[in-house]
């Protein structure tokens, strides 16, 4: 933490340093209020009204929208969101961690490999969906082609056409796009583990597995917490991959909060209902965000 800027006596040009410091934030704060805070509050407030996206006017609805949503789509949508979020956090974590450990050795070409492995993560989210949509294609897809060729299946499978399969397909695509980020973060963490600790443990007769559990893992606890928490928060509100790959289908089987709020507002035009679902979503999300900010704050102080 930098020390507070000392103010030389007589430096006041009508403004003290402190108020000047605050003034500097004003352009961003005004913009931020207009395009982030106001829209957030505005969207949440629609939950209390009967309001259409395309018709003017609205009428107060009390908690009717919440009753409707809780009696209808909330629980299945929550379930889909949780399945998606948990799977798309843990699977990339395991893959990314394994890869980080493998690239942290003296493997030749590891620098180049690290860069190449980033490809799935840097490309636009819609491209991730395009690629996997083509792989999973029921009629011409390469996945069915390989399975038929090796004789694992007789008939091509409609991966994106069946509820359970579609969710699995979405999870595979999103995990493919996420693991490189985990890899980079964990690799950066691994590079901070002091080599001396490993050597001392090795001298005491600890094998590679014990050194991993007792030296590497404890050292990485902070960074592991950060990547798991952030990935959970992002997956909880993820939209692009799901929306392009399945559109939330089939039969709503991959409809998460993001997809449901979007469709309710922009296809169903029902802003009250979208707002109510969004408010419930936001409550769950805030719990995660509060944990994250609290952990960051604690990290900065330590």
């Amino acid at each position, binding site marked *: 933490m930098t020390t507070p800027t*000392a103010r030389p006596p007589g430096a006041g040009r009508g403004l003290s340093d402190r108020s*000047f410091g605050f003034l500097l934030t004003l352009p961003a704060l005004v913009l931020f209020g207009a395009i982030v805070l106001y829209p957030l509050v*505005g*969207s949440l407030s629609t939950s209390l009204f009967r309001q259409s996206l395309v018709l003017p006017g609205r009428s107060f609805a009390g908690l009717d929208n919440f009753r409707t949503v809780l009696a209808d789509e909330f629980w299945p949508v929550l379930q889909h969101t949780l399945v998606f979020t948990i799977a798309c956090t843990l699977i990339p974590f395991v893959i990314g961690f394994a890869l980080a450990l493998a690239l942290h050795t*003296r493997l030749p070409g590891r620098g180049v490999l690290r860069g190449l492995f980033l*490809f799935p993560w840097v490309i*636009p989210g819609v491209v991730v969906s395009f690629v996997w949509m*083509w792989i999973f294609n029921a009629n011409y897809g390469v996945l069915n082609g390989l399975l038929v060729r090796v004789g694992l299946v007789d008939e091509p499978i409609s991966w994106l056409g069946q509820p359970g399969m579609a969710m699995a397909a979405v999870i595979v695509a999103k995990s493919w796009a996420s693991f490189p980020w985990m890899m980079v973060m964990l690799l950066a963490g691994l590079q901070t583990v002091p080599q001396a600790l*490993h050597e001392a443990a090795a001298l005491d007769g600890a094998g590679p597995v014990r050194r991993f559990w007792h030296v590497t893992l404890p050292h990485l606890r902070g960074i592991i917490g950060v990547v798991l928490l952030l990935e959970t928060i992002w997956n909880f509100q993820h939209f692009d991959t799901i929306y392009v790959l399945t559109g939330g289908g089939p039969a709503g089987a991959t409809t998460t909060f993001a997809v449901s709020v979007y469709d309710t507002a922009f296809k169903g035009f029902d802003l009250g209902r979208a707002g109510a679902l969004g408010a419930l979503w936001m409550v769950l999300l805030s719990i995660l*965000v509060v944990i994250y900010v609290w952990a960051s704050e604690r990290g900065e102080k330590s």
Partner: protein
Amino acid sequence: MTLAEPATIATPARRPSPQPSPRRRRPRPLGAAATVAAIGVFAFGPVYWLLVTALTPNDDAFAFPPRLWPDTVTFEHFTNLADNPALARYLGNSLIVSLLTALLTVIVSAYTAYSFAKFRYRGRRSLMYLVLASQMFPQALLLITLYLVFSAYGLLNTYLALVLSFTTFTLPLCVWMLKGFFDTIPDELIEAAKVDGAGQGAIIHRILLPVSLPGLIATGLFAFIRGWNDFIFALTLAGPEKQTLPPGLVNTYLGEFQAAWPDLMAASLVVSLPVVIGFIVLQRYLVAGLTSGAVKG
């Protein structure tokens, strides 16, 4: 840990490695190589298929089971793209909107980031964490009111609407990333300028910003990439005339007839190219960007 203080990670990720000691950890390249190979199949199999499909003539691409190795190679799918005026328009829109977003955000964020990095006042910490947390506000939710407001002011289907909506996610990213860069600038540099009689404006514009130029460019490039990759805002706030490439490609190729897979794979390569180049340029700042950007996905 690292997240909370981007300053510590704004430095290039690669440090000079300590002299290898004679008793260093034994490399186990066999296990490592097997792991890399297994994950490599998962990671690069789809990339290979993307490339192969983009180069395969239509007749072969729609054979079943598919040929894993193309017998004939064609560039017709890329020339098909060039012949489609709508795609050229989406490309132009993507460039304009992402560039304007990056410029606007870096300029506005620089002052705020300087304030967060070098001044101490009541409420600073709360503001910082408000900006941090805002990256977590769901876009689908913000979009409802943004749509209503832009609609009321007749701004739907304009570059302005896209730039402002993209700024909702680039602003927090840039503020935190630039704060990380400004944290590394020694206070003495600013104090010395003050002693020499430089005003606050001169300190910012003649010292802080020039010294931080690489950081400003890296931050701007990250903002450009995030804008380039946006899907949901451009899909909803713009029609075919002002839409960017990601929703433009969805509308062009995933309509009622999903047929032109090789064309779509070629287009996917084209839309990915600037981002890949951007990341190659940004390698040095990767971890800083990942964490602050982290700080916003």
